[in-house]
């Protein structure tokens, strides 16, 4: 037997000494005493919470930094195009009555988008806390899925309905979100006078302890991967990603996903074609984003 050639693992290039390769803050956050807090750091860029014009008005500031690996001309062209496309989609949603953050400012050369800060918490947090409260209140049911007519399920069913309505409005407005997860939908407390408006669709009467009642308007956020279009396949993939989000992040609430689809159908007339397409997407296991 010839002496086999051992496979020496190729050493990866050592990580750079200056491991702290902080992204540069966008100029807007560097030129005054105004403070900013980093909220998330995704592949696209960074989200800060800061103020806008008045110190008591908060805004979500999205910064798409330039990517060192990209050719500068290509990088500038892409950053500009993406900031503008996201802004146009926010604007189109708003005009069509879809609850999304209002646009405050755009700087496409710096890759900065500033939007209305949406108070409230993501649907992900609200659903998980509801499930925790439920397993506290009914320990026996802790492990099994929520039944639609189960005692105390009304708030969750109401929330899921409003999620379906929000997605229905989004698709009706000709927008495909591209990354529809329960982290990209906020539950914003009803504003005193806006509650009766149609923008928030059907809603439950006031519960006594509102902060526990999952009450609030669904506001869709983060249109970084969104596109304008009405292809059934893309809409079906939106629903599939949302369904997978429930499946992996809130397994016990996945049983209520049909509620979302019903509300989606009630809000969006052309839904039946999309729901049929959803079947194919499920079959194909359209991997889309695997929800960690």
């Amino acid at each position: 037997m010839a002496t086999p050639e051992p496979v020496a693992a190729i050493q990866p290039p050592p990580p750079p000494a200056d491991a702290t390769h902080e992204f540069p803050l966008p100029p807007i956050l560097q030129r005054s005493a105004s403070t900013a807090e980093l909220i998330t750091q995704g592949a696209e860029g960074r989200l800060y919470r800061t103020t806008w014009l008045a110190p008591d008005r908060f805004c979500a500031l999205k910064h798409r930094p330039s990517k060192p690996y990209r050719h500068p001309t290509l990088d500038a062209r892409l950053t500009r195009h993406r900031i503008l496309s996201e802004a146009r989609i926010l604007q189109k949603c708003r005009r069509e009555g879809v609850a999304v953050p209002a646009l405050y400012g755009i700087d496409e050369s710096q890759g900065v988008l500033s939007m209305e800060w949406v108070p409230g918490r993501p649907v992900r947090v609200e659903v998980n806390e509801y499930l925790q409260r439920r397993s506290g209140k009914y320990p026996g049911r802790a492990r099994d899925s929520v039944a639609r007519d189960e005692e105390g399920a009304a708030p969750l069913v109401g929330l899921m309905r409003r999620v379906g309505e929000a997605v229905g409005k989004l698709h009706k407005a000709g927008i495909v979100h591209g990354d529809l997860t329960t982290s990209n939908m906020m539950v914003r407390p009803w504003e005193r006078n806006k509650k009766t408006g149609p923008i928030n669709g059907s809603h439950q009467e006031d519960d006594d302890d509102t902060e526990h009642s999952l009450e609030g308007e669904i506001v869709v956020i983060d249109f970084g991967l969104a596109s304008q279009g009405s292809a059934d396949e893309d809409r079906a993939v939106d629903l599939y990603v949302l369904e997978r989000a429930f499946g992996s992040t809130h397994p016990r609430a996945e049983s209520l996903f049909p509620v979302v689809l019903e509300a989606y159908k009630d809000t969006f007339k052309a839904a039946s074609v999309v729901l049929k397409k959803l079947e194919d997407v499920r079959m194909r296991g359209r991997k889309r984003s695997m929800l960690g």
Partner: protein
Amino acid sequence: MAPLYALGCEGSANKLGIGVVSHDPATNKTRILSNVRHTFNSPPGTGFLPKDTAAHHRAHFVSVAREALKTAGLTSPKDLSCICYTRGPGMGAPLTSTAIGARTLALLWGLDMVGVNHCVGHIEMGRVITGADNPVVLYVSGGNTQVIAYAEQRYRIFGETLDIAVGNCIDRFARTLNIPNDPFPGYNVEQLAKKAFFEEDGVTKREPVLLDLPYAVKGMDCSFSGILGAADLLAAQMRKQDALLASGGTLKEGEERITPQDLCFTLQETVYAMLVEITERAMAHVGSKQVLVVGGVGCNERLQAMMGLMARDRGGSVYATDERFCIDNGIMIGLAGLLAWETGFRTPFEDSTCTQRFRTDDVHISWRSD
């Protein structure tokens, strides 16, 4: 428990690769005993057709197999545990020809057969070569473009091409410019792109010109057919300019002189930026800092450099292999097959067929449990 040995046969595209690899289940140490490859090169300006490629694989199967055994110093096949072959994905005729050869060896030597997914082969080989335990994998070749991450005994496809593979796009782009196929089109495109940094004299420095090619990324997927179409238009415009200048004419005012160098430079900058972007998105999604590039296109230095810049910004690093392993080879099929074989996986003879479509996430990765 001594190390186990396997023979791997790869023939899904225009490379016939046969090699002997050993793996010690106890120490998880992998050794390569031989890695022989013969590539079918069609003349410049043409692509490799399934029929001719299959004929090539049949014609060279015995010689490549014998050289693999000789180099490995294997006198008797009974030291082998199994014969592994590429079940798919890939081109039907070449896959089947190679499988017939492998099947005959297995029957003659009385060994088990193991059908292997080509992409899983690339990933397992990449992990061994680079020592990266759980990287996001970018698999880019003539036939495939996938961003993959491991989860619960599956290599899950996070993003992929929506139309043609990136390697296919580069190969066909090279054809429109009559760039030679040997050693492989992508390599020659890269050399031309490097020349874009110099004037015709090859000495004086110049700033390469980034022409305009469509950048098409949609979520975690991307599309390359648009780039091919745009590149063909630019190539046609270049030829018009060549003819005009040759006949003593001059370009219109402000019209940019298109050169093959700038075209190759632009193609690489655009296509690789797309690949790095969808890879970064998958890394952010699964929270991984390591990226492993496998497949023929993974040997490209510019792609590796760009991926490295991205990974560094995320506090991680890029792993890539050289052309011994990056390009289709028998070793990767032998390794992935042996790993499966060790967990009891066998491909019954009557099922030892091939399939052109074979999704990476259809394979049960029984040998991993992280």
